[in-house]
């Protein structure tokens, strides 16, 4: 009896690993194929002989070299790094202040504003990019990367506020009372008590702000036209493919490198990311 339960359990596990293997091939094939292509020589990419899933004629770093020496990749990288850093800081400051206020200060209208935050975070970028295009035009920010400081937080702040409200709400109220008795004001309380306790929430919010901003595609596509101001996503997709013959190796090298920062960030801080994701229920 016990043995049959054990063998059944093993059979179930074998089936499970089989299913997982199929999913992993599906999930990981695109990045694998991108990496493979980026290390192949042009002749091998063009060649129709042999199995394409392996590198058979020797690996090369030439596509990566060319990316840095012959394209504007570094300009895009710099622009994206600047914008992402500033947007992340800006969004976090706004979100932390608002989340503290909404979760603790219980003022009139806090409930409505909380719902409002939730609803605004459901607003997709494709709904508002046309009015933004006009507004950015008035401000004289068309074709400037700084326009993104204005529009990226619209997608990020509501979401970060929403996750942080959840984290702040889980901090016991005795802590605030103790601090208030000791004569702390709300700003001190936020900085000295809430933020240290809510570090996991802050890490999750920072990661979200970073990834959303880093991956932003529609806004830079709509508002920025020159190479000097362009971001990594749009720059890689639009300028690296110019020409009659696609340089697949270089294109994949660029795409893969541009993916790396969010993927690495995630690899090191996965648990924060997942707890933020599942606590706030989010977009996909």
């Amino acid at each position: 009896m016990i043995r049959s339960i054990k063998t059944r359990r093993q059979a179930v596990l074998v089936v499970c690993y089989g299913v997982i293997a199929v999913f992993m091939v599906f999930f990981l094939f695109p990045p694998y194929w991108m990496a493979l292509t980026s290390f192949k020589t042009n002749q091998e990419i063009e060649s129709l002989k042999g199995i394409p899933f392996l590198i058979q004629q020797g690996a090369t770093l030439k596509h990566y070299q060319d990316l840095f020496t012959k394209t504007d990749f570094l300009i895009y990288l710099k622009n994206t790094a600047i914008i992402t850093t500033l947007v992340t800081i800006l969004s976090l400051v706004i979100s932390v202040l608002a989340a503290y206020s909404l979760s603790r200060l219980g003022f009139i209208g806090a409930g409505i504003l909380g719902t409002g935050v939730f609803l605004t975070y459901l607003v997709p970028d494709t709904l508002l990019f046309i009015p933004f295009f006009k507004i950015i035009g008035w401000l004289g920010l068309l074709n400037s990367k700084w326009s993104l400081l204005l529009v990226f937080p619209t997608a990020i702040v509501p979401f970060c506020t929403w996750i942080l409200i959840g984290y702040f709400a889980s901090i016991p109220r005795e802590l605030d009372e103790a601090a208030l008795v000791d004569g702390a004001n709300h700003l001190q309380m936020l900085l000295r008590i809430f933020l240290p306790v809510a570090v996991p929430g802050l890490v999750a919010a920072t990661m979200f702000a970073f990834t959303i901003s880093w991956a932003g595609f529609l806004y830079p596509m709509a508002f920025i036209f020159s190479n000097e101001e362009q971001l990594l996503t749009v720059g890689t997709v639009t300028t690296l493919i110019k020409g009659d013959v696609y340089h697949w190796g270089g294109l994949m090298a660029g795409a893969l490198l541009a993916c790396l920062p969010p993927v690495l960030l995630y690899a090191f801080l996965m648990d924060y990311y997942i707890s933020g994701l599942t606590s706030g229920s989010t977009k996909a």
Partner: protein
Amino acid sequence: MTALRQEPLAEEWARQRARRRSSVLARLRSKPVAAFLMCLPLLVLIVGLIIYPFFYSIYLAMLNKRETQVVWLDNFRFLFTMDTFWLVVRTSFLFTFTAVFFKALLGFILALVINTLPTRGQRVWRGVSLVPWVMPLALSTLGWWWIFEPTHSALNWILVELGFAPKSWLADPFWARFSIILVNVWYGTPFFMIMYLAGLKSIPLELFDSASIDGAGPFQQLRFITLPMLKNIIAITMLFSTIVTFANFDIVRVLTRGGPRNETHLFGTFSFRLGIESGDVPLGAAVALVMFPILAVSAFFILRGVRRSVV
């Protein structure tokens, strides 16, 4: 401070300054003022960068192409007579419902499977599964674009090896739609898996224990415990995904740019084509606004679901 105390006037100043400072501090301590000040940046953002642009976009959608004259609903009337517009509507619905269905189904299967594994393995596979969702979508779609390339790339190589005819994936209307849905399913399934897995973990194990004592098999447990317990999270996740999928831009823009012959345009990409690329801002705004009712209905049900799960 000690130096100031020797002079009466300086002492008076210091006292005044201290009084002023303490009144600022007192104000920061009072709840309503602090609450308002702390929410102010958020309020400015919501009003200035979401509510105002939304109403402005309604106004824009009612202008003529040169934006010199209010033509009320003419843009919408024009859209409704346009064959391409109805094609976009059909594609958007097909894309959204098919993609959300498969993401939910595959995400559920994967979550169940991962949940069956020993705990240590769960973390690893959950982590690796999230890779598609962490890569910036426009860039991973670029990878897919290369996978779909007809002569030198992977998919057709496999087809030919298996004895099928190669396909021109992105040039044929059916396969182009298939491709954008496939990429969306690839991108979104990990998110569904994560949400469902979190849901599965929240079901008390005693429920399964007592069910199996009562003789319920795995499928009965799935049917009468797992699914009912996850009903809310399944619904919320699908509604969320409906909004985001419906409003997608990156995949179509990178893979097909709406082609062949506008067969794969979604609202977002079509609005971009008209509003930004063809310079007809009002018509582009009108196309984007047509999405709004669908988004609003989904948002309403999400809000209801979230409230219910909190209560």
